[in-house]
């Protein structure tokens, strides 16, 4: 049986959840009027905090915010189009160069079997795709963070 008073931390823990409190604390509170009063004060305070009135704004918040949003996400669409345009142009240039220098390119792969060539090309394409994707994600994240802190 505990003889000295509970400290504030123990009283708070008891008031928050009596069931989770150690048995010796519970039995002390039952016998000690001082601790019981303090625990009761905490409990009343927590109940009041839980049921306090929520503050509200006296204007239509949703309407006010929606009014300030940009009409359309045109900039985003433009950015997307620009990105796809660049990617297409890059592929076009690469395709044209490959076509023009096909003799030289074929010379590099002379002696390589068709399945081997397929593996090399597909691996290069997959690696390239992931590299570009990661590069774009990183760039986008950095821009977003910059935007966040500058707003």
């Amino acid at each position, binding site marked *: 049986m505990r003889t000295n*008073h509970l400290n*504030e*931390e123990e009283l*708070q823990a008891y008031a928050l959840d009596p069931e989770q409190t150690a048995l010796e604390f519970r039995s002390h509170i039952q016998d000690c*009027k*001082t*601790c*019981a*009063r*303090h625990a*009761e*004060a*905490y*409990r*009343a*305070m*927590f109940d*009041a*905090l*839980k*049921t*306090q*009135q*929520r*503050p*509200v*704004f006296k*204007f239509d*918040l*949703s309407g*006010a*915010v*929606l009014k*300030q*949003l940009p009409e*359309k*996400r045109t900039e*985003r669409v433009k950015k997307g189009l620009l990105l796809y345009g660049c990617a297409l142009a890059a592929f076009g240039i690469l395709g044209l160069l490959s076509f023009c220098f096909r003799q030289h390119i074929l010379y590099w792969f002379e002696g390589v079997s068709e399945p081997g060539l397929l593996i090399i090309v597909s691996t290069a394409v997959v690696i390239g795709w992931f590299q570009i994707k990661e590069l774009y994600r990183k760039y*986008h*994240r950095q821009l*977003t*963070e910059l*935007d*966040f802190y500058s*707003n």
Partner: protein
Amino acid sequence: MRDQNNLYAKDKELVNKVLRGDRGAFATIIKNTEALVTTIVFKMIQDNRDREDLVQDIFLKAYHNLPGFRHEAKLSTWIGQISYHTCLHHIEKKRPISVEAHEETISKDQGSLSNSTGQWLYRKDLAGILKTETAKLPPLYQTLLTLFHLEEMSVDEIRQITGLPEGTIKSYLYRARIQLKERLLSNYEKEDL
């Protein structure tokens, strides 16, 4: 766990709709998080005009940064985080926020209460007294108490919103409760005289 996953899926759906240009979906996000944001703004900011400007700024900031939201936390937690940091930034612009400056010496005399304290706290207009006394606490204490007790957020969720370490949050909550209890009791003793 399933509820949590459901919530994340709903958040994802709403965010995708907004990113596709659905303004109605953003109105839903505002409706879902308005109470939390309003609570944070009211607890941290004293001036009413500033509150009105800030709450709009918070949602506009959320809208513009939505493409960068990576669903690592609940959408409400993320918006709560924006609210907290926007308010903090606003306070810091005006004057440095300090918990210690508001600290008062807390009496540890446990025997000074009369027998009817508990009943008194229930009998009196505790809500009214609590509102007045809570408003005297530092903004950070008010915010933490409200997030924990009114919004019923866990310490981990509060950590995500405020960026404060768990131990600091627990310690601030502990001190805020003691301060508030002491203020309520001294209020009681004054009226009892």
